[in-house]
């Protein structure tokens, strides 16, 4: 009996698995061919306002590039950015793809928030007892479909709101070559340490870092519009210095008004230039 190994047996496997996976990637490549830039908005930490910043930047970008800005909510389990952009379903499914929801300012949005029952968590139809073995793969597959099956059309920029975590968009980079990343932090030292891990992961994966936005950099009074202290620390400038990237904006916490109104106009312009 001669037992040969996989590589000894010449020819494709009977299922063409490698070809199927290559086909999935080709589908993403074709879809992103009309997208100027894909920019991941990342932080290593939850609660820094990453989705808030993503929504604000999307609106600002849409003012500059009308109908040519997209937002992909990669936070599959805790999606928020669609609501911030007033994007609602149902989603139209055409033979050429799923038409993204239209959010405020004409931003094109895809998010699990558009798919899930109100108040229900992300759940799968498969047996849950051993979900640890396949859930990550399935979520990566859904993210791939969000990239490759959505009829994004011609976009200047597609912002990807990443979930919190130190991954730094590395998984996304394997699907979207040329991925760039924008880091979001709050001023505190704890945030700096956490965001630094994510930025390091992104840098190590060859993801181009466009800069840092420091969110909740002070509190802007709704009456007098003066900005006072909120958190101590200088994580934004520290991260910029650590990674040799620009601190693009320091955004104060505001109680009311549109997210993009919190941005200083000059800083907003600088962020958009960096995204370009």
């Amino acid at each position, binding site marked *: *009996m*001669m*037992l*040969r190994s*996989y590589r000894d*047996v010449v*020819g494709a*496997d*009977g*299922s*063409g*698995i490698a070809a*199927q*996976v290559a086909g*999935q990637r080709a589908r993403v490549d074709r879809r992103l061919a009309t997208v100027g830039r894909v920019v991941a908005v990342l932080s290593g930490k939850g609660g820094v306002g990453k989705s808030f910043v993503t929504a604000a930047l999307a609106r600002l970008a849409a003012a500059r590039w009308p109908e040519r800005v997209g937002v992909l909510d990669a936070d599959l389990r805790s999606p928020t950015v669609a609501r911030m952009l007033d994007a609602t*379903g*149902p*989603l*139209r*499914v*055409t*033979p050429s*793809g*799923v038409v993204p929801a239209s959010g405020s300012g004409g931003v094109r949005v895809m998010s*699990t928030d*558009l*798919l*899930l*029952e*109100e108040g*229900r968590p*992300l*759940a*799968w*139809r*498969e*047996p849950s007892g*051993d979900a640890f*073995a*396949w*859930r990550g*793969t*399935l979520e990566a*597959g*859904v993210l*791939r*479909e*969000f990239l490759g*099956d*959505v009829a994004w059309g011609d976009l200047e920029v597609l912002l990807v709101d990443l979930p919190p975590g130190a991954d730094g968009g590395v998984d996304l980079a394997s699907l979207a070559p040329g991925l760039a990343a924008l880091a979001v932090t709050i001023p505190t030292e704890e945030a700096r340490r956490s965001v630094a891990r994510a930025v390091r992961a992104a840098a190590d994966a060859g993801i181009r870092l466009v800069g840092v936005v420091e969110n909740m950099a002070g509190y802007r009074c709704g009456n007098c519009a003066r900005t006072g202290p909120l958190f101590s620390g200088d994580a934004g400038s520290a991260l910029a210095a650590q990674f040799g990237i620009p601190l693009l904006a320091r955004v104060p916490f505001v109680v009311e008004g549109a997210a993009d109104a919190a941005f200083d106009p000059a800083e907003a312009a600088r962020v958009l230039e960096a995204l370009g």
Partner: protein
Amino acid sequence: MKFLCLDCDEQMAFAERREPGDGTFAAAFRCPRCHRAVALLANPMETQLVGSLGVKIGGRALDAPPFELARGSMRGRDDAFVDEDRGAAGPGTGARPALTWSVDARERLLRVPGFVRGMVKRIYVDYAAQRGIAEITPEVMDRARTELGLEGM
């Protein structure tokens, strides 16, 4: 994954796929020389692990519809999607003959969760169109399900 017939030292070819609907999966491979067959039997976890990759054991007969993985796997709301029909002529298929659904097939389709129903309907329509089938019946649906690997749909 390859299957090798040790007696013939020949790679076995994919022959058939079965998804009985209980989360498990079976695929048969046959030696092209001696015609001996073996079955790959996967438990639910193994079946799901492969399914999570968005690939089909035995290959694909149809292109994956948009959001195949999300719609086939996620528990979503019934009104999440509005599926547009391809119309009389689908891409690459030429003009389509009129297609009807038997009453039983319609009832069965209505039992599919709304989140995924439109996609499943389109898969059955494409399956029938490719084979020149004029009426979709539960038997046609069973065949499509087995051949295309529509686990749980």
